[in-house]
């Protein structure tokens, strides 16, 4: 087995976050709630977002759901990286994450923790696992003030 490849994909941080996520749960209060869904495998994620009073800055992100190590670690790392970001910055990070999955970008030093996900770009069939949470966040931030989920965003 090509363990070196696997170590690239399953970096220690990813395995740790999968085992012991730090941002599982529901924010209080809930300003945005969005479900995401990967129809090909059945993985689901439910993101909640707490915003500042002006509604233009993220105070907290939490996630619930079931999925593989890649999907869950991606959600946990994303939730952490989003704290204190303006919604514009957050959307820009979503963009950057997607580019990173294509092998075309990485995050700057202050967000370098997210770069542990870079190895996924070598496993094209797993990119959807990593991006599910980011798609879901984008939908959450672009939705109106309604905290009720409008439905699933799908990752297809």
């Amino acid at each position, binding site marked *: 087995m*090509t363990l070196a490849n*696997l170590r690239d994909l399953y970096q220690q941080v990813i395995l740790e976050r999968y*085992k012991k996520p730090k941002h599982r749960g529901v924010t209080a209060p809930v300003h945005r709630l969005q479900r995401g869904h990967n129809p*090909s*495998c059945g993985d*689901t994620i439910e993101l909640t977002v707490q915003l500042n009073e002006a509604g233009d800055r993220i105070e907290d992100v939490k996630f619930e759901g079931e*999925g593989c190590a*890649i*999907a869950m670690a991606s959600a946990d790392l994303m939730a952490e990286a989003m704290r204190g970001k303006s919604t514009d910055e957050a959307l820009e990070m979503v963009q950057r994450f997607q580019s990173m999955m294509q092998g075309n970008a990485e995050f700057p030093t202050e967000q370098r923790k997210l770069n542990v996900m870079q190895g996924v770009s070598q496993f094209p069939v*797993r990119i959807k696992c990593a991006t599910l949470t980011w798609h879901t966040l984008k939908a959450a931030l672009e939705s109106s003030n309604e905290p009720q989920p409008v439905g699933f965003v799908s990752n297809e």
Partner: protein
Amino acid sequence: MTIIQEKTIAVKVRSDFPILHQQIHGKPLVYLDNAATSQKPIAVLDALRHYYEFDNANVHRGVHTLSSRATDSYEGARDKVAAFVNAASRQEIVYTRNATEAINLVAYSWGSTLKSGDEIILSVMEHHSNLIPWQMLAQRTGAVLKFVGLTETEEFDFEQFKSLLSDKTKIVSVVHVSNTLGCINPAKEICAEAHRHGAKVLIDACQSLPHMAIDVQDMDCDWLVGSGHKMCAPTGIGFLYGKLDLLRSMPPFLGGGEMIADVFLDHATYADLPHKFEAGTPAIAEAIGLGAAVDYLTNIGMDKIHAYEEELTAYLFHKLKEIPELHIYGPQPNADGSGRTALAAFTAGDVHPHDLSTILDQAGVAIRAGHHCTQPLHRHLKAQSTARASLYFYNTREEIDVFIASLKEAVEFFGGIFG
């Protein structure tokens, strides 16, 4: 374990499957995703190539030589399929794109006679293909869906099935072999019970046709559906078997060329069976490929294939026991490997099936991870998703060994973190 055959079927046939002889990530390919689709032998690939190189023409439409050759091969393949399932008449075999289309054909055509309150019996283990068309029919007609559950051993609950049957039951549509549980449902007994209540029976034989001899007359099903691509044939071709009188009584499904007898501007009369249900230019090469696949399987012998796969099942389950973290769904096989088919859907503790599949792929082993198009069954089993290894007659014990070794490594790789 006893080593039974000196030279297994697999050893003899592997050279017929060029695709099996390649490396994936530097390791020999071990293809264990046969329930999704099988590989194709040279005989089938040659039939496709020969057709396009020498005989290609539209069928039933010309008097020239190529058209007549194409028609003969296309109709000849129908005879082969009819013989393969022991249909009473070649007119009982309707080509479709796949099993899904065959089920939809029945649900639309025959289903159009259903009324509000009529009952349709399915089981919780159905593939989405044998669920959604009936949901749609129920929505159109007001018919009611009823579901057979599972026994403690995760098999078709025949007793509960009997209790669901009544004069309101119009159709029972159930899978013969579950693509997730691997259980073999008592199709013949299901037909007999349903018929006592005047209900029709459709058998989804996608996962049994490739692995065991099927006799539709002995089974006495009203319809039976299959997909060619799971039984060594190309994609894009499947078939519907239906009893002659029943198919005659059913209105056409799709309208167009090929399915007509006489056409006027405002009406038409329809062709006789099976063409009534084959509108438009069909998948000619693929149907010929299906005929070649049926010849190939018949030459080996379905009983031999079944017996060899039982040996593989016994060995597979024996080896799977070496990994205590595994939870395997469906019934246990008997000691001789009978009682279920050569596939195993399982979970491995906290290791997600997707992660397992990626790790196994690095070892050259192709398995499936996900819900295998049986989401309601997974919900019933309280599993978000499962990993599935599914075997065919070209798989060997050595491949099972490679699979088990890499599965152990994968469980260890993740086991470390869960301690």
